[in-house]
Structure formats: structure tokens, C-alpha cells
């Protein structure tokens, strides 16, 4: 399978810690520095908490169109599969992929949703590969995106005089945006990347979550509750992450070893874009490879569904990858313990 093109979209302008500290005080710096986040893009107006009118399906559509626009003479109608990955779709139903299919004007494409976190885009890529290799699809748009700010920011803004750290953490570490991979079975240009390997696995299925995001779920109803707080909707369990994440990384290392790639095979690793504290834990993996770690999360925040391809798009657009270079994209997620990776070689 070949990567024909990449695209991305970040809504609004970049919102820095300094800008937010005007409304939430010094604690913005304390928390943001702890996680290593300098800025993020937000669909809402950070000064008023008002929505912009754009949500995840709009971001995903724009990222997909960005990818397609970079390919001369490519007809969007030749896309017959649209797979999206997000934890913040516009609705529970209709599905995000159906909305993106509609906005792209692709009535004959097949839409599939992945409800996932930081490795969801790689799960989506694996499914695209299966469709393309079996001839069920010719070209696919694999799109990941999130609109986090409309869920929490208006709420947080209204209580800015008496917020707590757990509420503020989510504003600071999560960002809005989307990215897209246009993939197909044919190499349309000599400089297309070949996607050599795509893997996605669940490990530690018996372990409790490291993060629960309960908004929109059937178990924890929020309708009618007037005392709901952000920290009830977004629940972080750092001890579980500290305990289990190294085990997930080791499982991924073991799998990567089995595929036969050597220490010097990768020019770049595009890894989790979550936050600097998590990246520091990745040293375990980096020691095995000489590759440079490409990190963009300090600028755009954590965009679970979109972060990996956004970072890759940034890497490619800044002309840092040469013909013959291999790039390892890897993601892992803590709501349940999953990892995914793919290896791309530039033609």
C-alpha cells in the first residue's frame, strides 16, 4: 500500500499558555510546564468560550481536502473508502465517517468509524490496508480528528474564578485539529511513501483504564445532572499509566523486533504527541534506535485521533525526509492498553 498524500487542518489560531493565563492565572503555567505544552489550537474563542461553528467532521473534511489537493490530477471521486478515528465525533450517531463522506461529496464511498484514542489512526490505517490489499477498495482516506474544546471550554470559562486543576489540565493538554492520509494500492508518483508494515495490537486487556472519557456514553449519564464536573467526565489515573505504559512499550518493541527492522533502519520516529512527560518515558524505546524523535505535541497539544498523522504531515512538509528514508510512526493509548505502528519508506 502507498501513501499518496498527507493533509492536516488546525482550527483558529494558536492559543498560548500566556493567553490562557489572562483568564486562569499562574496555574496555567504550573500545569502546562509540568506536561510540557506551550500552545494548542481551539475551535472555540478562548476569550468568550463561544463555538466557532466548526466541529470534528469539518476539521476532518478540511484535512482530507488538503491531502487530495496536493495530488495533481487526482479525482476525489476515486476515493471509495473513508475511515475516521476520533474520541470526539460530532454525535454518537450519525457516525463521523458518514458526515465526512457527505461533506466530501462521496456517495459511493464506504464509511467506517474507529472510536479510539492515540493509536486509533493506526487502527484505521490497518483496516484501510486490509480493504486495499483484498481489492475491496482502491483508494482510502484515513482521517483522524478531535474537537475537544467545545466539550469543556465553555464550561470551564464560566467557572474561571473557581476552577480546579483537574478541570484545567484537560484544557491545557488537549487540542483541536485533524489529519488525513490518502492511501492506495498504486504508486501514483515516484516519491510516494510505501507503507511497508502496519500493526495494531491490544495488550494488557485485563488491566483497568489509565484514562476514562465518559462524555456521551450510556453508562454514566450526564443529562439532567446539574452538578457534573469536568473532572468526572475526564478521569486520569496516572498510577495506572506509570505502571502499564512501560509494559505496552515493551510489547511494541518486541513486535517491532520480530518484523526484522534493525537499529539503523529509521531516520525518524513519529511517536506519541501526548505530552513531554510521556515522551520522556519513551526513552526506553529510543535507546534501541538511532532515529530522531519528531515531536510536535508541545505546539498543538494532544489531538488523540489526529496527532500522529499531523506530526508526520508536518515532518514531510518541512522537507526533512529524503528518498529511501524510513519513518516509524507509533502510537499507544491508555484508556485501554493498545499500541500501533507503521513503517513508511520514501520513494
Amino acid at each position, binding site marked *: 500500500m502507498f501513501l499518496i498524500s498527507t493533509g492536516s487542518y488546525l482550527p483558529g489560531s494558536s492559543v498560548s499558555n500566556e493567553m490562557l493565563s489572562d483568564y486562569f*492565572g*499562574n*496555574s496555567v*503555567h*504550573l*500545569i502546562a*510546564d*509540568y506536561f510540557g505544552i506551550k500552545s494548542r489550537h481551539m475551535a472555540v474563542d478562548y476569550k468568550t468560550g463561544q463555538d466557532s461553528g466548526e466541529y470534528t467532521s469539518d476539521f476532518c473534511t478540511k484535512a482530507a481536502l488538503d491531502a487530495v489537493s496536493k495530488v495533481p490530477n487526482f479525482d476525489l471521486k476515486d476515493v471509495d473508502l473513508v475511515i475516521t478515528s476520533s474520541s470526539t465525533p460530532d454525535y454518537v450517531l450519525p457516525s463521523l465517517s458518514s458526515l465526512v463522506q457527505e461533506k466530501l461529496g462521496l456517495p459511493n464511498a464506504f464509511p467506517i468509524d474507529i472510536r479510539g484514542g492515540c493509536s486509533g489512526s493506526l487502527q484505521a490505517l490497518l483496516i484501510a490496508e486490509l480493504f486495499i490489499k483484498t481489492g475491496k477498495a482502491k483508494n482510502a482516506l484515513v482521517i483522524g480528528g478531535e474537537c475537544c474544546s467545545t466539550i469543556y471550554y465553555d464550561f470551564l470559562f464560566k467557572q474561571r474564578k473557581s476552577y*480546579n*486543576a*483537574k478541570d*484545567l*489540565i484537560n484544557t491545557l493538554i488537549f487540542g483541536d485539529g485533524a489529519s488525513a492520509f490518502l492511501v492506495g494500492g498504486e504508486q501514483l508518483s515516484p516519491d510516494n511513501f510505501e507503507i511497508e508494515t502496519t500493526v495494531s495490537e491490544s495488550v494488557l486487556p485485563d488491566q483497568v483504564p489509565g484514562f476514562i472519557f465518559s462524555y456521551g456514553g450510556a453508562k454514566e449519564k450526564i443529562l439532567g445532572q446539574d452538578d457534573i464536573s469536568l473532572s468526572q467526565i475526564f478521569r*486520569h*489515573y*496516572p*498510577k495506572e499509566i506509570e505502571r502499564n505504559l512501560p509494559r505496552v512499550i515493551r510489547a511494541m518493541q518486541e513486535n517491532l523486533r520480530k518484523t526484522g527492522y534493525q537499529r539503523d533502519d529509521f531516520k525518524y520516529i513519529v511517536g506519541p504527541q501526548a505530552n513531554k512527560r510521556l515522551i520522556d518515558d519513551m526513552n526506553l524505546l529510543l535507546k534501541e534506535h538511532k532515529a530522531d524523535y519528531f515531536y510536535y505535541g508541545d505546539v498543538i497539544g494532544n489531538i488523540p485521533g489526529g496527532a500522529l498523522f499531523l506530526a508526520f504531515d508536518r515532518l514531510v512538509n518541512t522537507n526533512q525526509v529524503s528518498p529511501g528514508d524510513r519513518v516509524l510512526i507509533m502510537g499507544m493509548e491508555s484508556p485501554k492498553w493498545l499500541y500501533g505502528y507503521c513503517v513508511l519508506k520514501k520513494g
Partner: protein
Amino acid sequence: MTYTDYPSLLGWVREELIFKRLKLEAIGFSLDEIQQDTVLFGDAGLSLDSIDGLELAVGIEQAFGLKIGKLTADIAGEKFKSPETITRFILELKNAVAA
């Protein structure tokens, strides 16, 4: 906040900052279990986590208008070790501002 002496500030740290702000009653703790030398983090004592540590830091900044700055390993490991060390840390910060 006007807690300037150690005993009254310690009372605020135990009840308002730790017990109420971290909602410890909801997970089965009583205020009596939070004594001045109770270990807050690690496997012993209350076994709080890193997010709780941030919550305490933000609570101190909000209550007293103080600036902790970076939550370094020194602050997280030593200054936030127990209600007693937190109380002394707040007094240090307040004195630094006053000076």
C-alpha cells in the same frame, strides 16, 4: 486567606486543601486520617497521585495568590510530603513575598 500562624494554616491544609479539595471523603477517607505527619504520596499513607499533586499546587496558588512556578521533583517529593511540609512550604512562600 489570612492564615499566618502554623496551627491555623495546618488546619486549613488538612481540611480545605487536602480533604475537601481532593474529595477524599468520596473515596472512603475521614479527616482524622489526615494528621500533620501523614505521608501523602507513594505506596504509604494516602497514596495520592501526580494529578493530586497538581491539584494541591493549584489550590495553594488560588487560595493565597502565591506563585509556585515549576512543580519540580523537589517540591513534589519533599515539600508535598505531608500536611506539615506543605504548611511550612506555604509559610516559606508567604514570607518570601512579604520580604
